[in-house]
């Protein structure tokens, strides 16, 4: 009888351990993680990406809706194909990368969570901070939990991966980036995409 109880207790503890939320680190050693941005402009759309991504997300595969985390993008890592445009973008006239070195999104609440297999979709409400201005926005995200797949990405390392994809738009005027100015040259709306993977080593 004691043995049975011990076995059941062990199974229970193990179950709790498996169901516990995991913390995923989004600093990507492979350099794949990126945040893309696009603004309409008269001659051609301004298309760029940022690679300096870090942050952590706590994710429970059994309860994706309880996830929370913060993703940080280094402003200076924003890249454009045209060097003059890049210089303007990072200058104090636009993003002021020296004074505001980070762009962040911190989640507060997951709503409308739908899970199918290892993939969940949700509307995540959180605080988006750009150029020192913080605003609450809701972003549709897709989370894919890849159990025991870290080793496929980083040799000799065991663990899980969490892939996050999101596409949303913001207005630069909401974040004090030349509000009401140059709209004939650069659109007010900025399309953002996030394609990132985080690792949870075991």
């Amino acid at each position: 009888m004691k043995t049975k109880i011990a076995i059941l207790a062990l199974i229970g503890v193990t179950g709790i351990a498996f169901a516990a939320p995991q913390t995923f680190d989004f600093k990507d050693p492979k350099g794949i993680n990126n945040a893309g941005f696009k603004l309409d402009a008269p001659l051609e759309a301004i298309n760029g990406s940022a690679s300096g991504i870090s942050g952590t997300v706590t994710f429970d595969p059994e309860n994706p809706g309880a996830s929370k985390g913060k993703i940080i993008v280094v402003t200076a890592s924003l890249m454009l194909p045209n060097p003059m445009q890049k210089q303007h973008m990072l200058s104090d006239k636009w993003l002021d990368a020296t004074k505001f070195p980070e762009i962040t999104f911190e989640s507060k609440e997951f709503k409308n969570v739908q899970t199918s297999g290892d993939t969940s979709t949700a509307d995540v409400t959180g605080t988006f901070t750009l150029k020192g201005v913080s605003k609450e926005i809701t972003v549709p995200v897709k989370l894919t939990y890849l159990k025991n797949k870290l080793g496929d990405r980083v040799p000799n390392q065991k663990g899980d991966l969490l892939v996050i994809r999101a596409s949303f738009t913001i207005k630069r005027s909401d974040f004090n980036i030349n509000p009401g100015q140059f709209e004939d040259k650069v659109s007010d709306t900025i399309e953002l995409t996030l394609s990132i993977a985080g690792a949870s080593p075991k």
Partner: protein
Amino acid sequence: MKRILRVIAGLLIVGAIAFWVATGENRGWTKTHVPKKTVDETTGLEGIQWQDKFVPGVDFLGAALLGAGVLAGISFFIPLKPKQPKIETEQ
């Protein structure tokens, strides 16, 4: 000198257009970096690697045309070389 400047202006235009066409007729701004997409097999994520590559755009063409125009313009201010009178030798 007049002729040399005009020839250089012509060559500048032809050369710039040929280079622009050869590099893909980019009708946007000049680029010094181009994005190369890579797919991570494990996660399926599409990453972007920026590669150093010069791709001339319409501003490059504009600068070449302006340069050629300046050279051609200068050529109009260069006075013609006065003709040397022929010296006839008596036989």
